């Protein structure tokens, strides 16, 4: 049996804006292996969540093309019943905002138990409760019996996020998608949550997709990293390669803009991620933000190239990439899109 847990082939997720469809996830091909953390990083709006939702089949009004193979089975076009059997059981997701991800009117225990009920009707009520307590314990919630009967609003953000995680891992999923699980949390709590996810992966040998825009987090967590920009994967590599030998100008810019010791000036990526409707659909999508790289250096319809084994980069412009010098940058500031 192959090690591939999830395979995305030419996945394209489009939203209707006005009368047209625009792809927020555009031709993404990606693999997640068992017992592996795949980090996906990218700026806000690059399509990370859209990708995760597509895998989970949670988009209500999107057009999804391409294949999503889960354990070799295409789950992009299965019936809702089949999908429901998978979701929460073998496929699970942790959401970004712990404040709103829980039903405000339901007791914490019931919300966790619901996942159990949905996938195992035979479980006795007692067993279920025990399992919920166990889960609460696992995610490090003190006094689980007490918390069982509490309501979401009575818990702090960190606690709630743990409950959300408990829901996700209740049925020991094979694939866990964590969409920015710590963005809303303090660093100390973030460290704990990440610790938890890491432990889960190790215990259950699940595959994990960790979506974040915090490079520090992926540096600590991921085995492999995919960098997303404007709906596309621009670079995929294992974590060491990516941090030590980034190729794509976008990846390099990202890494460079993180404050680090001894740095006087931080690197600035010009411009912004364009809105969905304004995405350049041809050519290197990042080219607009590195105007000092000659247009001829960009590929016309760039595809992911494998530069070294397991290291994929889109667009060959990385070969010509350099950071502009300070003075030039200042000049560019003045004329920046405004």
């Amino acid at each position, binding site marked *: 049996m192959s090690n591939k847990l999830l395979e995305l082939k030419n996945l394209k997720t489009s939203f209707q804006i006005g009368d047209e469809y625009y792809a927020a996830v555009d031709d993404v091909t990606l693999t997640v292996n068992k017992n592996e953390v795949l980090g996906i990083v990218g700026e806000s709006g690059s399509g990370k969540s859209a990708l995760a939702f597509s895998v989970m089949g949670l988009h209500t009004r999107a057009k999804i093309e391409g294949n999503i193979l889960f354990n070799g089975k295409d789950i992009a076009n299965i019936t809702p019943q089949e999908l429901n059997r998978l979701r929460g059981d073998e496929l699970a997701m942790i959401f970004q905002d712990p404040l709103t991800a829980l039903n405000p009117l339901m007791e914490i225990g019931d919300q966790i138990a619901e996942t159990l009920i949905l996938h195992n009707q035979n479980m006795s009520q007692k067993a279920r409760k025990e399992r919920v307590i166990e889960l609460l314990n696992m995610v490090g919630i003190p006094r689980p019996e007490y918390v069982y009967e509490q309501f979401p609003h009575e818990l702090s953000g960190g606690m709630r996020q743990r409950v959300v995680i408990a829901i996700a891992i209740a049925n020991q999923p094979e694939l866990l998608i964590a969409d920015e699980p710590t963005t809303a949390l303090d*660093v100390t709590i973030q460290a704990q949550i990440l610790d938890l996810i890491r432990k889960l992966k190790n215990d259950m040998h699940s595959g994990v997709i960790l979506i974040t825009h*915090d*490079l520090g987090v992926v*540096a600590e967590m991921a085995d492999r990293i995919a960098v997303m920009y404007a709906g596309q994967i621009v670079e995929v590599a294992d974590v060491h390669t990516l941090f030590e030998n980034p190729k794509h100008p976008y990846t390099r810019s*990202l890494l460079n803009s993180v404050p680090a010791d001894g740095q006087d000036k931080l690197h600035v990526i010009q411009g*912004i991620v364009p809105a969905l409707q304004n995405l350049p659909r041809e050519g290197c999508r990042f080219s607009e933000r590195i105007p000092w790289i000659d247009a001829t250096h960009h590929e016309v319809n760039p595809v992911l190239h494998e530069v070294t084994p397991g290291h994929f980069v889109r667009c060959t412009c990385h070969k010509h990439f350099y950071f502009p010098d300070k003075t030039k940058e200042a000049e560019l500031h003045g004329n920046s*899109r405004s």
Partner: protein
Amino acid sequence: MAILEVEDLKVYFPIKAGIFNRTVDHIKAVDSVSFSIEEGKTYGLVGESGSGKTTTGRGIIGLENITAGKILFDGVDITDKKSKTKDIRRDMQMIFQDPYSSLNPRKRVFDIIAEPLRNYESLSKLEEKKQVQELLQLVGLSPESILKYPHEFSGGQRQRIGIARAIALKPKLIIADEPVSALDVSVQAQVLNFMQDIQKELGLTYLFISHDLGIVKHMCDDIAIMYKGRYVEQGTKHDIFNNPQHIYTKRLVSAIPDINPRNREKQFRFRRDVQKEYDESYDDYFDDKGLAYGLQPISDTHLVALPERG
């Protein structure tokens, strides 16, 4: 010379309950905080969510009622709301966290930046326009943008508009409450760079509030760590990062994810050790209510919250 001196600042919020909605208790959002900021320096205020950073900033500038304490600005007592005369006020400005909500979406950039000018200076229309355009240029935006609306700008640009507004009156002190935490890393850099530039140019003093130790380290000269409304440690950048004394500070520092994947294991180990130490020596650092003790100097610049010995 210290431009801002805060002594024993307390900001309490009432908790109301009971039949007559009487105040039964207080949230001590800021509980006896003292510090001073030297002119031209950047003073960082760090802490977890809810530790009282924002409240401290808002208390100083007068957006929050002060329960007790004393605030001296440029040697003048401005504790009382009434004593915050217009003149004092113009010397102290604020930059807000959210570049989207801090600019009135219904106003043109011109009106936004001109707002403080109109409140404090009676300029002719022409002068006003000139000044606004100068300010825009200063923050690196084209002077033609004055007729645009905020939504036509990116997050970083908006934050710069906010800064332009804050410096319009040439203030001495700027309180920046998490000025970049709503921004993507890439944009963050832009704003941080710019804040440093402008500081040099105008000789500004910053009270820089953040929960991101990485950024604070990058920006600040002096740093204070806050926990549950109190200071746990205060010192120079070097003191805090290289010689953290308080267990809470240590834990905070250890929790910062390391950008270098090679350090993973080391980082985990470090974190585990700190956590162990934290659990073991919690009682040495916090009183029975889980609050920090008063600050004790351990060097000229370095203060740590430790129980009074003796």
